[in-house]
């Protein structure tokens, strides 16, 4: 079975802090994605990566950056966290496109 793990299930940070969210997949997938999920808005794509060291902006990249130094790991970075970044963050991976996306359990981030 494909497994996508995220470093934290719950995270509480203060405004202005730098925040790292880590995601690891164990199935040698080419593609990895970061979404945020908010009630009534569904999942919105922040960034995605189709190869190591390659990244492309999604629909809402402002205030975020990403890093993919190794194929299995995709990190989401909040350079200076703000309260409007309080949300559920979901990581996903897929073998190719088009293909099924497999999701991690999510990180619920609260920014105070």
């Amino acid at each position: 079975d494909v497994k996508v793990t995220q470093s934290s299930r719950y995270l509480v940070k203060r405004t202005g802090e730098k925040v790292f969210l880590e995601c690891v997949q164990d199935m040698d997938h080419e593609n990895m994605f970061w979404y945020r999920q908010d009630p009534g808005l569904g999942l919105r794509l922040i960034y995605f990566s189709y190869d190591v060291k390659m990244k492309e902006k999604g629909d809402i990249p402002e205030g975020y950056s990403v890093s993919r130094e190794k194929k299995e790991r995709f990190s989401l970075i909040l350079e200076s966290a703000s309260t409007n970044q309080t949300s559920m963050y979901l990581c996903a991976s897929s073998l190719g496109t088009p293909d099924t996306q497999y999701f991690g359990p999510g990180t619920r981030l609260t920014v105070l």
Partner: protein
Amino acid sequence: TQLLEQSPQFLSIQEGENLTVYCNSSSVFSSLQWYRQEPGEGPVLLVTVVTGGEVKKLKRLTFQFGDARKDSSLHITAAQPGDTGLYLCAGRRDISNFGNEKLTFGTGTRLTIIP
């Protein structure tokens, strides 16, 4: 951003009843997926429909893709408490610089089946 609107946003029904959830857009998608998400977990793929008018069945769940590939529906027959969850539709679109397809997710329908 292309939006997929789902209706209803919330639905609470008794066990054994039937229900239909709708997913609508003004945009055409190359295919459409339905996911179910349970509390504390990420979404899990239920089905992918590709052809306009296509109907797929998964036990008591019936999925249909609209003829124009702009909308979809999910019908559940004789709902059971295990069907409780957040149902998300997601349409595939090709807008990236590398010609890869990405998913646009719907707004979600939170379904509760009361025993």
